[in-house]
């Protein structure tokens, strides 16, 4: 049974990650390859606040989200003038830089050794010490985040995002402040990405920089693209699909070493095939045109 709860935790984590990236990429058309950096900053800030400053899990997570949003400004403001490929390359650079900082700033992050012994989250006095309880916590946070993201997407601001995505010049001509809209949605996406970071840290009770690499950023983007960019259900379906894929391979009796590569080969090819025949993904509304 614990196995099922574990899968539910992982799906919750990736569903929030994908839904938050979907705000940036699916609704606003900004292809970002630094979401794993925000995920990592969220994980590290939450962990450090809990372990060094004695914060509880939820306050640490909230502060982590706020700080991640603040850090996202450092990339959003200079990259805003850039379009298309250049913006992607800037976010990619930011991803590599953050990974390098997590890896090399040993006095703060313990670098490649990682941080072990992260305390169990305690919510309302109840320790979240079983996989079942953790599945409840992460499921609840995922639902909360998804509801908030849905509210953003359906608000006038959400409409503005789609307007900027579909025709930036027209939106600017109507007097909308396009740069400010982009900065806001980027910060919002970063803040939401910090939540699964905190969940991941509290669940694994150990973090090191290798969980927050460029490959992870590409993985999160793939979830959005495969599930369907610009739709509400797409990221959730994509997350479920991508988390269940390796489990399915395991049921096919594939050895773990092969399965790890096979899973990535499958999702890489899936990206190529989808872009060719169905760029909006399974459920998407936005085909990157």
């Amino acid at each position, binding site marked *: 049974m614990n196995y099922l709860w574990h899968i539910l935790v992982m799906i919750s984590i990736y569903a929030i990650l994908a839904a938050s990236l979907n705000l940036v990429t699916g609704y606003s058309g900004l292809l970002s390859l630094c979401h794993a950096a925000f995920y990592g900053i969220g994980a590290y800030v939450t962990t450090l606040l809990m372990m060094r400053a004695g914060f509880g899990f939820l306050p640490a997570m909230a502060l982590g989200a706020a700080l991640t949003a603040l850090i996202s400004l450092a990339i959003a403001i200079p990259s805003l003038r850039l379009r298309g490929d250049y913006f992607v*390359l*800037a976010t990619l650079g930011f991803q590599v*830089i953050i990974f390098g900082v997590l890896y090399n700033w040993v006095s703060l992050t313990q670098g490649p050794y990682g941080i072990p012994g992260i305390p169990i989250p305690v919510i309302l006095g109840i320790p979240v010490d079983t996989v079942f309880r953790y599945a409840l916590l992460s499921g609840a946070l995922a639902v909360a985040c998804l509801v908030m993201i849905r509210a953003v997407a359906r608000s006038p601001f959400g409409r503005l995002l789609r307007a900027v995505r579909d025709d930036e010049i027209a939106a600017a001509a109507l007097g909308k402040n396009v740069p400010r809209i982009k900065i806001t949605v980027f910060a919002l996406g970063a803040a939401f990405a910090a939540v699964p970071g905190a969940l991941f840290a509290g669940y694994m009770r150990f973090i090191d920089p290798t969980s927050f690499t460029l490959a992870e950023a590409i993985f999160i*983007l793939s979830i959005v693209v495969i599930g369907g960019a610009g739709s509400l259900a797409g990221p959730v379906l994509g997350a479920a699909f991508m988390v269940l894929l390796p489990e399915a391979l395991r049921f096919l009796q594939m050895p773990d070493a*092969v399965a790890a590569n096979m899973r990535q*080969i499958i999702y*890489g090819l899936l*990206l190529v095939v989808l872009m060719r025949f169905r*760029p909006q993904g399974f459920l998407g509304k936005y085909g990157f045109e």
Partner: protein
Amino acid sequence: MLLQLLANGLVNGCMIALMALGYALIYNTTRIFHVAHGAAYTAAAYLCYLLLIVFKWPLLLAVVGGVAAAALLGVTMELAVYAPLYRRGASDLISLISSLGLYVALVNLIALLFGNETKVLRPGVEKTCRLLGVILTRIQVAEVVVAAVLLPLLVLFLKRTLWGKIIRGVRDNPVLAEVLGIDLMAVRIAVFAAGSALAGMAACLTALDVGMDPQVGMPVLLTAAVALIVGGVGTFEGPVIGGFLLGLIQSLIVWKISAQWTDVITFGVLIVFLVFRPEGIASRRRRLEESAA
């Protein structure tokens, strides 16, 4: 000590410049953010390993095999993935996501076939040469010689010959080039072949020097992309200048700070350029109405 560092920077710069020029050929002409170029690089290194160590081919033939494999892979990717997308009029973002998918699939295929561990092509101590108090291995001398021959020849070729003019024409305006009777798809195949072959050359030489693992392609590709932007997108001398500049900066980082910060500072340089001089070192400032393309 300083001289040795400069020499190492030069060797490193030669390889970045080769990779960056190959990337520039493809990117300038097709505007595809061809991440899977990194996979062509990795594939060339592994084929070289296969031919040299497993099949016991002579060194030179193994390198030729690696270069040919990269060119073939590049052309295959163009024909199977990018050309259909271009004909459909798909956006740059779609090509980019396809390219990411290709990269992930190919690199994992290589890891599946050859294993994830680091492979060394020439075990043991390499013979060295001393020149002006600088110590270089024979492979490193070969890297410099290959780059010193190929880079100027290619840049001159692209600047002076009709072929170069056609490629520049396609770069500046693909639609107009096609109207003038240039076979656009053939030019695209040619730049994919030549660009990937350059990546293969850099890959084989670097692999002979320091070995490789399945993940080597991405950092090399990213450094080449940074060299192109720093040097100047749309030019062919720009990526070469940018490549040498990055090679020198990286060896200074190793000297003054620590090798671990190399990636951080490389991308720091990128962000500085993107913000303050997005047109790069070599390209002239364009007038506003030119920048639309």
